[in-house]
């Protein structure tokens, strides 16, 4: 089985973003970028499938600006075999990304696509679902456990009420949740080795995909900020304040 993992380059999740003064977006200059944490989990899971013999080849795909190569390299250093960069400076929406991924998938014919449930920049939580619809494949979202079966996958999904187990036919799109695994760090030798792994570069035009945005971002603002309140010394005082001042008890 061949696996494709789409990966996204985002602002490092530990950094508190700042809104630009002209309110056109968030500041991306001189900000530490990293692989979206959910994509790391998807890469890790796929590497484990390779290590267990369930998969033969692992291809990572990133759509975005030239610097997305770095994210692909990170995945290659973790253990992916080769990368595909779909290069464009147009801001990409999940619908456009899904179309680009679909074009690559039709060429590569993987048995499984593993991806993050959500990119922590725009918090869209859409791309896997959209891709599965375009391919008319089975879909498992928010997955915290994957078992590989002869003709499909049994997955555990984290849903609002608890857990749900479903069986998916192959090929399938699976989006992963945080508790699936703990991603590895790339070792220095593997980082060196990754430099020689191939990355192919394509463009939306070459794939015949129109990526014109459908949703215009009119402005981006800071959320209203909360002020730190007062300190209390004991339970009596807390209950008194919640009852008489805040009136929530």
């Amino acid at each position: 089985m061949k696996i494709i993992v789409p990966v996204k380059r985002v602002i490092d999740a530990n950094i508190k973003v700042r809104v630009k003064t002209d309110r056109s977006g968030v500041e991306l200059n001189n900000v530490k970028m990293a692989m979206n944490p959910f994509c790391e989990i998807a890469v890790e899971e796929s590497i484990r499938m390779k290590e267990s013999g369930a998969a033969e080849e692992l291809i990572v795909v990133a759509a975005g600006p030239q610097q997305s190569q770095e994210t692909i390299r990170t995945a290659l250093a973790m253990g992916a075999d080769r990368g595909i960069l779909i290069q464009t400076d147009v801001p990409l929406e999940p619908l456009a990304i899904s179309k680009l991924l679909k074009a690559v998938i039709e060429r590569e014919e993987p048995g499984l696509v593993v991806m993050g449930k959500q990119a922590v920049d725009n918090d869209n939580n859409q791309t896997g679902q959209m891709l599965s619809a375009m391919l008319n494949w089975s879909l498992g979202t928010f997955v915290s456990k994957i078992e590989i079966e002869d003709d499909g996958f049994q997955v555990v999904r984290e849903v609002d009420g608890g857990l749900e187990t479903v069986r998916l036919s192959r090929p399938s799109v699976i989006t992963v949740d945080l508790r699936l695994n703990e991603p590895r760090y790339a070792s220095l030798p593997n980082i060196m080795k990754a430099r020689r792994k191939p990355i192919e570069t394509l463009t939306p035009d070459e794939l015949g995909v129109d990526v014109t945005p459908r949703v215009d971002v009119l402005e981006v603002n800071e959320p209203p900020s909360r002020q730190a309140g007062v300190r209390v010394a004991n339970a009596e005082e807390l209950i008194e304040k919640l009852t008489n001042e805040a009136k929530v008890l």
Partner: protein
Amino acid sequence: MSVLIVVEHDNEQIKASTLNTVTAAMQIDEDLHALVIGHNCDAVASAAAEIEGVKKVRKCDAADYEYGLVENVAPVVEGVARDYSHVFAPASTFGKNLMPRVAAMLDVQQVSDISEIVSDDTFIRPIYAGNALATVRSTDDVKLITVRTTAFDAAGEHGGSADVESLTPSADAGLSSFVKHDLTRSERPELTTASIVISGGRGMQSGDNFNMLERVADKLGAAVGASRAAVDAGYVPNDYQVGQTGKVVAPDLYIAVGISGAIQHLAGMKDSKVIVAINKDEEAPIFQVADFGWVADLFSAIPELEAALD
């Protein structure tokens, strides 16, 4: 043109998230229809018909929809979506799973997790774990939207008297099958709708220690939540997680116990009306958003709070 909401339910009862979604959709148009897809779900369709503001219920009932498998349910939504200017669903795991699959079938760029409606085509939504609010305008002819339920009041459960129309089911997609549910059973209120939430973090140290929080919760009529660290450590099930990638809550009172206040946790609770933080580290970031901060060891503070509530 009319607007449609997709009803979230378990074939017996409507989920509360549906009521908030109705309120959001009503801001676009009063001619509001509700779509119920399920199996043996007459009770749900009748309840949907009674929701204040619902003008018509469209029901699609077949065995293949019993477990809401998205490969089967999405084509039903797709089949009626073009009758509407907008299709809404809650941004719960139900809506997040379903709506983008429908959007792609319609070639529409969905707008996720909106917290405010500016006009027919313009919406506000949090991005970057709520550290920024984007105002976005959709240019698609049908708008597919998921709603942050805590940002909209619940519509009344009674007052409507809509007709129920049956839709013809489509065939099983044959792509997936249901195996089992392991749902968390609790007598306490649901996390996302409770008016008081008490959450524990890594500071709780064990699942057993959550019993302390549960006793306080029962005295307050509160729901119990958790940070990701507490869920990862296995103290409580995954559906307790509050935050950017867990549940978003906005109760009247949120009590964070042994939680440091990482941005991803704040993303899920900072719209609460009143926030209380109990933490032994007076530098913990959670105190920066807390209306009432209590610097204390939780193992003495929580029993003290429990006793004081008598």
